[in-house]
């Protein structure tokens, strides 16, 4: 039996490297694709995003992937966005408006979580973007399970304070930016060590 056989049967655990990582969703940015295992955003999983302030290109980072998903039959659900997603800019990024559904829950914590979970569990959605004010490890675990079950990509924007806590998310990133670049600090990434990537805005 050759070494490759052994590895492919995954009887041997290896600390890093050539584990079979499910194919990711191309981000549209080469530097980021090269960094992320699977060559893109992890599908059927949670991507957690932390940012200090809005307006540093936090949405445009996801637009190429969302634009591609919106060409399919399934929907992209936005739960409690802090501002209005502006339709002309969405179409300019290539997102099909006919696949966009916005949900404004009331401000109670459980409500927005409930809305995200409903969206994740529905066969009709392919991705959800949610701005959660309060949520803990247990809530995220629920969402992670739902996302896995339906192969739905879930992007959660969370307050910076939540960064210190544990999380079942497949990918956790912190965004910061200046006039030229957007800096993506990878806090946790399944199948890869933390690091950082800078993209031109």
């Amino acid at each position: 039996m050759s070494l490759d056989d052994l590895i492919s049967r995954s009887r041997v655990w290896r600390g890093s490297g050539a584990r079979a990582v499910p194919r990711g969703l191309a981000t549209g940015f080469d530097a980021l694709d090269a960094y992320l295992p699977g060559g893109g955003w992890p599908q059927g999983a949670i991507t957690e995003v932390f940012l200090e302030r809005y307006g540093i290109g936090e949405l445009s980072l996801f637009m190429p992937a969302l634009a591609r998903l919106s060409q399919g039959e399934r929907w992209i659900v936005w739960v409690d966005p802090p501002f209005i997603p502006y339709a002309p800019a969405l179409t300019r990024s290539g997102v099909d408006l006919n696949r966009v559904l916005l949900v404004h829950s009331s401000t109670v914590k459980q409500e927005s979580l409930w809305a995200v979970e409903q969206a994740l569990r529905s066969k009709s959605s392919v991705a959800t973007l949610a701005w959660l004010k309060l949520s803990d490890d247990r809530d995220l675990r629920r969402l992670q399970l739902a996302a896995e079950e339906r192969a739905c990509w879930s992007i959660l924007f969370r307050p910076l304070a939540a960064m210190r806590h544990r999380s079942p998310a497949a990918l956790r990133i912190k965004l910061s930016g200046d006039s030229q670049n957007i800096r993506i600090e990878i806090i946790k990434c399944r199948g890869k060590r933390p690091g950082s990537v800078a993209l031109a805005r």
Partner: protein
Amino acid sequence: MQMPQAAAHSPGLAPIPEAHEAPRDKQLWLAIQCSTPDLDSLAAWAKTITPLVSLDAPDGLLLEVRGSLKLFGGLTAIKQKLSTEIQARRLPFHACAAPTALGALWLSRHHGDDVFSAEKLASRLGDLPIQVTRWPESQLQLLSDMGIRNVRDCLRLPRDGFGRRLGQRYLRDLDYAFGKRIDLRPCFETPHQLIRKIEFAEETANLEVLRNVAGDIVEHFATQLRSYQQQAQSFGVFFHHHKCAPTYTELLLISPAHEKHRILEPLAARLERVDLPAPVTALEMRAEQLQAMEIQMNQLFQGVDAETDSFELQMLVERLRGRFGESGVYGLKLMPEHRPELVWVKLTDRLLHDSSETSPVSPWADERPLWMLPAPVPLDDGVMRFQYGGPLRFESEPERIESGWWDNRDIRRDYYSALTACGEKLWVYRDCLTRQWYLHGIFG
């Protein structure tokens, strides 16, 4: 030249049996005698045979079938269809046809046979005992005291005397039955809304109780809707209180439904969110916007096809709307417009239908921010200066947007994209009239 009629009367041909005899009169009424509390639903079904259906409470149903004979292939075929339907409901019935509505009804009460001509009708009706008329007992007693046993005897009495002694109404009935007077009957219409109200023995604010009662009502609606072959799109719920005005909430489904679970699930979510100012004395529900049922086939092997996808989305939207209301769940739509705040609209209904109808929107040419503020914020405002402190650096040449002089929402603005010291990119404008600076969008 040989006339066609002559050929028809040639001796070799068998006489035409009565059942196939073409009705000579204008109308042919089929009366159905059937004891059921659910006569409405039978009437709704009968609408599939003829638009002219009339109820004769409590157990009579009248169908004008003259116009339907050709379509269904004769009276025998119609009666066959009818008997299949009623037997499926496990009900005893008797049906017979006659040129007049009341005549058919009387005959059916006596389990008579079909009659097609006015002359035959007169002789058949004459044989019927007077009890078939269902006149009040006192009138029937009066007639039987006079030695009258059947309808023919009534006709032998002097007309004006009969009218005077029994009442004009009974004279009119005879005229209707024999076709001497036009019998106008109200046409049965399927209801436009269903209403059901349940009073509680004592007032309650218990959500569990209310949910159960609402479940019962929805179940009742589901049965009724199925029997009417209809679907409802909107459901109104009234919570009646002892002293104050009823609390009202409305559930609007994204597409009409008749299935219990499709109505009950969003409704239960809605009930949880209703603020009740006082305990509830009665729960009233109305199913509105009824429309003919569109059958959706449930496939045995459900693949990922468009049909189930749109159904899944429907369920999702309804579930979310049950909780957050109609205005909380919406899609986006572009409008042919230049003013930044009017270029998009919320799409609250027809979320599903528009996707296939709209022509593909050409991508927006100018750079626009992904985030829009609900309303422009003056940049002098204390909060904004605090948040976006420091000088703004303009990144672009101004873009003049000037439009809307025709509808009093006139704007004349110079838009800039600007960077803050912290690296946030904003979409700001200066009002050309007031020289005031505003923040309108954020390049997220």
